[in-house]
């Protein structure tokens, strides 16, 4: 069979020229981003069920604000509109997950807009931002509207934030019970001891209540008050498993982060002499935003180191900072600030952990 010149020409019509390699992995940025969104769905849906459908409204507002901000900024900055890559959706979703369930809707709207406009696009867009946009957005909201950001927790039918009844020794005054039941578990741990001291009461019953099997169970299942995304440890871990399985994230940051928090808390409570040491450690691992932060926000690729050693250092740094803030800082929770601070020194970590070149 002779191939004619005309045939040859026709054969080459669809030809593409590019440098090697000519095959590529199937994972792409949009796929990675949408996988993250998917992995957050179990916890998100559970939160809507637990705290009511208003939560869905908060989440949708946050996401829409992120998307709109992204489109407007990319249009103004004459950048290609890349909103379909899913990164703005993640920012909106993660920001919402870091808010109390009953915030007014302008909070997520402003927070997401700040995250996308200032923290992401003004720094150059996806890949160039130094700080995790969702966390920086949360920090901005917390600094600007502290009351909205720290009091609008969900109250369960019994009137408490901590879902189970905090039944105490009869000696506990109503004042104390109110203070505990109106705060998240971490908030209770932070505020109650001061109050107890003022009232010159024993702190023991409080620790017995917080560091208990029942409390750990609640935290694990998610039957507890807190931010939208801080509810169910097990559902967050389910999503994290998906990301680990699909190799979107690696174990390095989450494991080193959580292990460091556990170690710090273990050392602290060992020396302060809490009876149920293992419950104290588990309490700190499962409460607040640690699981959410360690698996979904500290692992943000853009703002974390690129080397495996760097990732472990990053995780350890986050763990130490989060523990210090929780134990001695002004806020009950330190996860978001720990990650933001470590984001800031990521370039330094990357520089210091450059691997030895093969043969060098």
């Amino acid at each position, binding site marked *: *069979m*002779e*191939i004619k010149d005309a045939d*040859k020409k*026709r*054969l*080459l*019509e*669809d*030809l*593409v*020229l*590019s*440098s*090697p*390699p*000519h*095959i*590529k*992995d199937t*994972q*792409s*940025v949009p*796929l*990675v981003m949408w996988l993250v969104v998917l992995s957050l769905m179990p916890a998100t849906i559970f939160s809507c069920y637990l705290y009511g459908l208003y939560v869905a409204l908060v989440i949708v507002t946050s996401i829409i604000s992120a998307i709109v901000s992204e489109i407007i900024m990319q249009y103004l900055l004459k950048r290609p509109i*890349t909103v379909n*890559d899913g990164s703005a959706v993640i920012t909106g979703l993660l920001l919402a997950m870091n808010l109390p369930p009953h915030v007014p809707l302008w909070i997520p709207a402003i927070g997401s807009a700040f995250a996308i406009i200032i923290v992401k696009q003004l720094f*150059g*867009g*996806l*890949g*160039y931002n130094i700080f995790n946009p969702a966390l920086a957005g949360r920090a901005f909201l917390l600094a600007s509207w502290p009351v909205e950001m720290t009091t609008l927790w969900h109250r369960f039918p019994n009137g408490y934030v901590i879902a189970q009844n905090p039944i105490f020794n009869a000696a506990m005054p109503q004042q104390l019970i109110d203070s505990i039941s109106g705060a998240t578990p971490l908030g209770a741990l932070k505020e109650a001891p001061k109050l107890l001291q003022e009232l010159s009461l024993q702190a023991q019953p409080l620790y017995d209540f917080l560091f208990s099997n029942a409390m750990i169970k609640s935290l694990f299942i998610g039957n507890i008050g807190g931010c939208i995304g801080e509810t169910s440890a097990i559902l967050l871990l389910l999503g994290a498993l998906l990301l680990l399985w699909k190799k979107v994230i690696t174990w390095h940051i989450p494991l080193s982060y959580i292990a460091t928090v556990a170690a710090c808390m273990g050392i602290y409570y060992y020396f302060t002499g809490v009876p149920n040491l293992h419950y104290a450690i588990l309490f700190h691992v499962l409460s607040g935003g640690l699981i959410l932060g360690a698996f979904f926000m500290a692992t943000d*690729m*853009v*703002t*974390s*180191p*690129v*080397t*495996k050693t760097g*990732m472990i250092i990053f995780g350890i740094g986050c763990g130490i900072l989060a523990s210090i803030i929780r134990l001695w800082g002004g806020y009950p929770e330190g996860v978001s600030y720990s990650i933001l601070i470590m984001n800031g020194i990521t370039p330094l970590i*990357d520089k210091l952990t*450059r*691997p*030895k*070149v*093969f*043969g*060098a």
Partner: protein
Amino acid sequence: MIVHSFHGGIHPPDNKHFTNRIPFKYLSIPQKSFIPLQQHIGKPATPVVEAGQLVEEGQLIGQANGLISANVHATVPGKVVEIAEYHTPYSEHGLCVVIESDGSFNTSGKVRQKNDFLSLDKEALIEKVQSAGIVGLGGAAFPTAVKLNPPANRTIDTLIINGSECEPYLTVDDMLMQTHPEEIIEGIQIAMKILGINKAYLGIEKNKPLAIKALQTAVANVKTHEIVIIPLNKRYPQGAEKQLIYTITKREVPSGGLPMDVHVVVQNVGTIYAIREAVLFDKPLIERYITVTGKIVRKPGNYKVRFGMRVSDILEECGGLVENPSKIIMGGPMCGLALNHMDIPVVKGTSGILFLAKNETKVTPFRSCIRCGRCVSVCPMNLIPCDLGNAAEKQRYDIAEKLHPFDCIMCGSCSYICPSKRPLSHFIKVVQTTLSAKR
């Protein structure tokens, strides 16, 4: 023996099933052969024939020009039509000897006298390899005689034969090992005699069980030398020289250095086969096995091809394509060269021709780096490809220079894995060329 592993690497789908059970076939001789005078790294050969001259099969038509060069022989008998510039894999204007086939094949298919290589000394053996124009058939096409004759201040204690064939799709080395195991072992013994050593390793990726079995059987009869067959884990780029040496001997070729710096010589199995033919039968290198493959090729397979046969002629012999190709690649999909037309001849370093359909090779615009670090974890040389890519994109060659761009082996693993589809190895190539030009 413990087989170590190298850092990084990727697992692309190997797609060898198209051809890894198809025995070799000869392709018929094309009317016209376009034989480039440069089919190797180094200087092009100097033509020693003239237009109008009749040449015999295997006659010298290009004389090696200097040490790093290689002889070129007439691959078909016939008349030299012209010596002119044509598009070759190495150059858009590569000097080619064009031969119109005619006359008789006076060497092909005839039983030949077998030389006794044991009676020949090192110099005589190297001379045979050199005059046969043998170059590395794995793809790099470095003159083999030079590699087998390291300077006196470099001692060699180990020969490594590369049978890993880690490039997806390609199956020539696999088929050669399946069908010619005794010949390969004999070739290894010749190379060991040239190098004056007693130890050789043959590394084969585990996805070639038939080749491993065949060679293990063949090597069982060898008593005089220590030749060890090493099954390697399937991982790209296992066949890269430095990674192969490290995997088998745990020696790291120093940055900017050569295998001989760690007392090792590496040869591809195809080259070993060619060395044997040259030494035992004085046969010049005029043909090789190639894999013609791809989902859209009507008759994919492993074929014996004479150098100078053009891709279009080969495709005709393979029954054409079922749909228009999106890419025509000379070599494998990871390191091969994309062709822009099919009038390009097969040369000594061509291990295969791959036709990819539209859905198999998407060229999408690349996005900005999201710093996921996947390129860092797959880089077999421990580089930071993402930073190199970003520096190259902004033309900050001062930054790129500090990131060891010249240690890159161009394996393409970083580009393969990048979720932003950034052409990282291309960026690094740009850095290398720009910095070299400045020096």
